[in-house]
């Protein structure tokens, strides 16, 4: 039942899948983060309409299951005349969804900053842009870093869902190998192990950062 040789032969394909998982996640992460910054600033904006818009975005993309979002994008894009490769649709789907989560995390970081600091900065003659870039951004980023890293783990796990639209990332590769070799258990276990390696490394990193942050605060 347990054939090490076949597992060994399949390994390069799994690693290739892992590579796809990593770079698609990274791309989704970067785009999602940028989106998150935009949505976050909408939600913190002075205009009610913009705040509403940001709120609606977060509500929709966090309220609907990612799988449905992915299917929606995958089937809808061709319908409205956009012929994009599957991986583009998949990455866009990941980015749109995790943008909503990033926006909320960042907002949490911004609204906990003491108002007194901002007032002090204004009194010192900094303009609003300088306050945002020099005072608020660095602090918000630093305090939310553990949560952001945790979100990255969730993103990597969520990226397994893009296997559904046929992209040969880690889960899909395992699926293909499992089906062709009939060694289902082994290949899924191997895939799970690879996910563990990546995500546990990230979790340890997040934990360390959190600790350092708490120490710096104490």
């Amino acid at each position: 039942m347990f054939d090490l040789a076949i597992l060994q032969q399949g390994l390069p394909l799994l690693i290739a899948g892992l590579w796809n998982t990593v770079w698609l996640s990274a791309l989704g992460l970067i785009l999602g983060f940028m989106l998150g910054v935009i949505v976050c600033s909408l939600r913190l904006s002075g205009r009610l309409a913009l705040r509403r818009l940001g709120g609606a975005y977060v509500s929709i993309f966090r309220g609907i299951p990612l799988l449905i979002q992915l299917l929606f994008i995958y089937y809808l894009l061709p319908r409205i005349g956009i012929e994009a490769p599957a991986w583009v649709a998949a990455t866009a789907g990941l980015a749109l969804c995790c943008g909503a989560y990033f926006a909320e995390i960042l907002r949490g970081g911004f609204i906990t900053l003491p108002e007194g600091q901002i007032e002090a900065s204004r009194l010192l003659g900094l303009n609003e842009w300088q306050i945002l870039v020099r005072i608020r951004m660095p602090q918000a980023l630093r305090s939310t870093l553990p949560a952001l890293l945790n979100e990255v783990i969730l993103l990597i796990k969520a990226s397994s869902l893009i296997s559904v639209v046929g992209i040969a990332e880690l889960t899909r590769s395992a699926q293909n190998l499992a089906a062709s070799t009939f060694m289902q258990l082994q290949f899924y276990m191997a895939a799970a192990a690879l996910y563990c390696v990546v995500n546990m490394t990230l979790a340890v990193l997040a934990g360390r950062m959190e600790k350092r942050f708490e120490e710096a605060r104490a």
Partner: protein
Amino acid sequence: MDFSVLTDHLPEIAHGFLITLLSWFGGIMLGAILGLLIAIIQLGAGRWVRAGLRVYIEIVRATPFLVQLFLLYYGGPALGLRLSPMAAGLIGLGIYGSVYFAEIFRTGFLSVPRGQIEAAHMLGMSPRTVIRRIQLPQMMVLILPALTNFTIVLGKETPILSIITVPELTFVLTGIGSETFAYVETLLALCVGYYLMAEFCSRLGQRLESRMGRYLGQQSSGISSERNTAGART
């Protein structure tokens, strides 16, 4: 767009919705019971048992739910474990949920002041009575926001069961979609359906919280409403 596809297939859709609700509810129950057990064992068990549980928790947290499902459903038979899609889905949700529920319960247990437990021990209460009468009732108020939140998260995982052919809402509607080519209509219906489910659950949680807060008097309701705003979905 033509939404008559939906009305034409209403019985199937209703059945799928029922399966979704069943697996959601079943997953919560199984996950919560397992999670509570894990949390209780973590409280009192020796070092090695705790370490073992820690490993279980970390592995489940680090792997995607879809891979866990594949392991159970496709990998199970190699170990003599032949599960129907629905059984695999329920057990999968239960296992996946158990680790998150365990963390929620663990923080809950730790939130009850040590002294109250010591007082109970000095009055002769057994550990079981202490958990049931002193710790659980108090922590429920505190962890309710987290429980509601995770219930919604778990609900949003149920569409993944469609991938191992559990005939739940997503499976039924995407099936109808590919039969009739009414992708947009069926997917829109899914979006609205799941969104409303999450919204309903979150409203219900908030109502439950305010009621429990009132029941516990001022002190505790202060804490819970603070938690509520922090954990609320927007």
